Each structure stands twice: as structure tokens, then as C-alpha cells.
């Protein structure tokens, strides 16, 4: 049964004349005869969280890698921070990528480096106007690891950590430079529910304390639900449910956009309410059956 595309019009006008952090314009990615992404278009705006659902092999990770130029679009154009990176030279991309934090599916930690060296890596290797002093690097490593509650693991190697801890170190490395955009590739994949919730709570905390835009690839509805329905209260240092009164200034769900990929096509883009009320059978597979606000 063909899946009906219900993509709404592009929200070009959003941001009061500002520019999106990321823009996909009719992007397709092809490997030989296999098409991984087909005609995908969307904008990611400052402060926005996008949650991308899709079955295994639907092109979620390909989309994230294309967004930062790790994979090249076969057709269409990709913009990052207003710059067209579609055909940019690899060396020219390093500067732009330094403004994006990335958490890879398995953490992507360098196994020959300690936790502290892994977290310090972006600080020491990215193209910055000035290299931070060693004291500054040490301070920011500790700060990032304290954020993910792993400040006691400085001298450990990734192989000495559990899967959840590796993922948390990956988050620390992604946010240590305080980038305005953070991409998370399946942050909860393969983790038990308790650890998965801890990871998502950290991502929500990072979003609400640093005000960064996020794109989260996942196949767990709970992950998107947590991002839309909860926000981190810095005073009480815990996540709290947000008010869903229309137009409420504290309603984070307004800044959370859900997308669903099916065989490389973007078949849904919309709010949590629109997602939960979708009648598309493929889209509904990603919505918890008891979801839906009365």
C-alpha cells in the first residue's frame, strides 16, 4: 500500500526573517543503484528540536550524515548555517562542522584515547579563532563530564565503560564546545529503558540550559514524547511536564517537530498532536498506542 505524503508547506517564513540552521532542498542520496534519500526537504530553525522517526534502513543516519557533509547529496542542496555545503570541499567543511555537535550511534568514541582526551578532542582539534589554554580545556572537560554526571571517569578508556556511559561521554564530547546545533544519531539504541530515559533527560537538559537546536534520530516514540512534553527546570534540577495551553510561552512542544522517514522519503512532518492524530498506518507504527492528549 503506497504511503501518502502529508508533508505540509515549508515554514520558510518562520524565524522572523532569520535563516534556518539547516535546510534540505529536495535532497536525494544514492549509492550506486540504491536510493537512500528521495527528495527530502525541511528546515531546522534555531531553538527547534526535530525528532526523526523511521524503520531500520529508512535513511535516518544517512540524513544526519548528509546534513554535515559526511555523505554527499546526489541531487538537491543542503545548507548549514546559511552556507551551501552540497559541493563544498572537505577541508572547507571542517570550520562549519565545528559549530555542530554530533553524537554517533555507538558513541563514536576514539578507543585509543581516554574519556578526558575524547572530550578534549573538539577543543584541541577544531578550527577555532584561538586555541584555548590547557587550564581552560581542563575546566571545560570537567564541566562537560559533570553535565553528564561522569566526572569520575576522566582517566578511563571507552572500553572500560558501559554502553550507556559511552553514550553519555559521546554527549559530553558533542556539547563541550557549546555548539548551536546538536545532532543525535539513535542516542537510545540498544539501551535498557532506564538508561535510555537518563540519556534523553540529558539531551533535554542540554536543550533547555544551552538553548541549542537539536535533531534526534530515533525509533522510540518515548524519546520524542519526552522532548516535546518535558523541560528541564534548572532550579529544581529535574525534568518537569510542560503546559500544553495553546500559545503558552513555556510550551516546548511548539518547538518540537516530528518527522517520519519511509524508504528514504519524508512521509510526515508536523507537531506531536498531528503525529498522534495521523491515520497513516506507517506513521502510526511510531506512535505509542495509548498516546494522544484528551
Amino acid at each position, binding site marked *: 500500500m503506497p504511503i501518502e505524503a502529508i508533508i505540509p508547506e515549508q515554514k520558510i517564513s518562520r524565524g522572523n526573517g532569520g535563516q534556518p540552521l539547516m535546510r534540505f532542498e529536495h535532497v536525494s542520496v544514492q549509492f550506486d543503484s540504491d536510493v537512500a534519500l528521495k527528495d527530502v526537504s525541511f528546515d531546522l530553525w534555531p531553538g527547534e528540536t526535530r525528532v526523526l522517526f523511521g524503520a531500520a534502513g529508512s535513511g535516518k543516519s544517512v540524513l544526519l*550524515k548528509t546534513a*554535515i557533509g*559526511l555523505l554527499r547529496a546526489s541531487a538537491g542542496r543542503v545548507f548549514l548555517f546559511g552556507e551551501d555545503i552540497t559541493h563544498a570541499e*572537505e*577541508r572547507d567543511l*571542517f*570550520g562549519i*562542522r*565545528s559549530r*555542530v555537535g*554530533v553524537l*554517533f*550511534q*555507538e558513541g*563514536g*568514541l*576514539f*578507543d585509543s584515547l581516554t574519556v578526558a582526551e575524547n572530550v578534549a*578532542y*573538539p577543543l584541541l*582539534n*577544531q*578550527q577555532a579563532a584561538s586555541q584555548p589554554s590547557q587550564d581552560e580545556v581542563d575546566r571545560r572537560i570537567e564541566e562537560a563530564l559533570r553535565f553528564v554526571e561522569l566526572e569520575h571517569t576522566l582517566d578511563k578508556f571507552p572500553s572500560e565503560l558501559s554502553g550507556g556511559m559511552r553514550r553519555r561521554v559521546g554527549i559530553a*564530547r558533542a556539547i563541550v564546545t557549546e555548539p548551536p546545533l546538536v545532532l543525535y544519531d539513535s542516542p537510545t539504541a540498544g539501551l535498557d529503558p532506564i538508561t535510555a530515559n537518563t540519556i534523553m533527560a540529558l539531551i533535554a537538559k542540554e536543550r533547555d540550559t544551552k538553548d541549542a537546536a537539536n535533531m534526534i534520530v530515533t525509533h522510540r516514540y518515548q524519546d520524542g514524547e519526552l522532548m516535546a512534553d518535558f523541560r528541564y527546570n534548572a532550579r529544581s534540577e529535574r525534568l518537569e511536564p510542560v503546559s500544553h495551553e495553546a500559545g503558552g510561552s513555556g510550551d516546548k512542544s511548539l518547538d518540537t517537530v516530528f518527522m517520519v522517514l519511509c524508504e528514504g522519503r519524508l512521509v510526515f512532518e508536523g507537531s506531536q498532536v498531528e503525529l498522534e492524530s495521523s491515520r497513516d498506518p506507517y506513521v502510526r507504527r511510531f506512535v505509542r498506542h495509548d498516546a494522544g492528549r484528551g
Partner: protein
Amino acid sequence: MVASDSSGGERLLDFLKAPVAAIQDFFILSGRALKNLVRPPHYADDIFIQMDVIGVGSLPIVILVGFFTGVVITMQMSRALSTYGAVSQVGPVVMLTLVRELGPVLTSILVAGRNASGIASELGSMKVTEQIDAMRALGTDPIQKLVTPRMIATCATLPLLTIIADTVGLFGGFIVAYFSLRLTPGQYWTPAYQILAYNDVVQGLLKPFVFAFIVALVGCFYGMRTTGGTQGVGRATTQAVVAAVVWIFVLTTLITRVFVNIS
């Protein structure tokens, strides 16, 4: 008939597409690795670490193989030379065989077996665990960080290892000549030294330098294009060693041909 020829041609093109693309990728990687020699940043620490791994790490096996190569050449050649009553010429024979051919080729094959495989498996593991992608995403050129230091380190250490292998091999030959063939040190070392021409020394040092590029770049090339998890890492390692050894033999033939023509 025409359709059959056409489909045969297409099949041939399809068959050739993958190896041609691989050769093209290899030259692109090599070009970028060479270009990085003059472009910052330079990772001096990584170069010294790799020199330690490749150079110092290979030293025991190179010494061992070099010594026994010299011993075996002397034993074999002494039999042949005794037929013509020319056992005293064993020194020059060992010298020329080692310096021109066996020293560079055997040392490079050993380093290929030890380090091309090591490089391919290390980089291959990094590739399949997304560490290479992470490096690119974090603003580092993996070719600059991983390939160029390994290439520089191999090019710096392989000629030195070859000199050591040649020296130890000559010493091994001397042990046999002295204790078994009853030659005096002068009878062994003096003609061996006198036979050595400038052409031989250049050839003996150019070969390991060229082979060093092959060993390092082939290892990096197969490592960086690894796919298919741990099985893919194993496959990349095997391919790297086989390709490096084959290229060493092809190139030693070409270089020898050039030097034979020159002399």
C-alpha cells in the same frame, strides 16, 4: 550477434569498473596524503608514535631475518662458487644480493606483513565503529591525522631498517665465511666493500623508500574503505598485505630494470 557483442562489452565494462574505481581512489588518497605534507596542521606526535611502532617495533624481526638471509646466501653461494674455485668471491656476492635486492625486498615484505596489516586493521576498526566519521565531524581531516603520519613514518624508517638488515646480513655471511669457509676477515670484507658501486647504494635505498609509500598507503587505503564489520576488517587486512607484497615485487622489477639500463 550485435546484441551479444554489446552485452559482452557491457559485462566487461562492469567487471572493470570496480578495479578502475579502486585505483582511482588509491591515487586520490595518495595525492591528498602527499599534499598534506605541506599543509598545516602537522601532527608531529603521531609521526613519532608511528616511527616507534613501525621502525622500533619491526627491528627485532628485521635483524633476525636479515642475519639468516646473509647466512643462507653465503652457504648457498659458497657451493656454487666452489665449483669455479672462487669461494673467496662470496663476500661480493652476498653484498650485491643483499644491497640491491634481498635487503630492500625482504625488509619491505616483513614491514608489509607486520605494519600494512596493522594499519589496515586499525583504520578498518576505526571505520566500522564510526571513529573516522567522528573525526571528520569533529573537524579533523582523517587523511591528515591518520594517513600522512603513517606515510612519513614508514618512509623514514623503512630505508633505515633496510640498512640495518643489509649490515646484519653481511655479518651473518661473514660468520659462515669465517667459521665454515675459513676465509679471513680481509678476504670477506675487502672485496665485498670494493664491489659496491654508487649505483648499488642508490638502488638499495631508493627501493625501500618507494616500497614504504606502497606499504603505508596500501594499508591506509584498505583500512579507510573497510565495510562490513569485523569480517570486513579481516578482509581489509588480508587484502592490504597481499596487494602490498604484489606491488613490492612489481616495483622492484621495474626499478631493477631501470638501474640495469643505467649501468
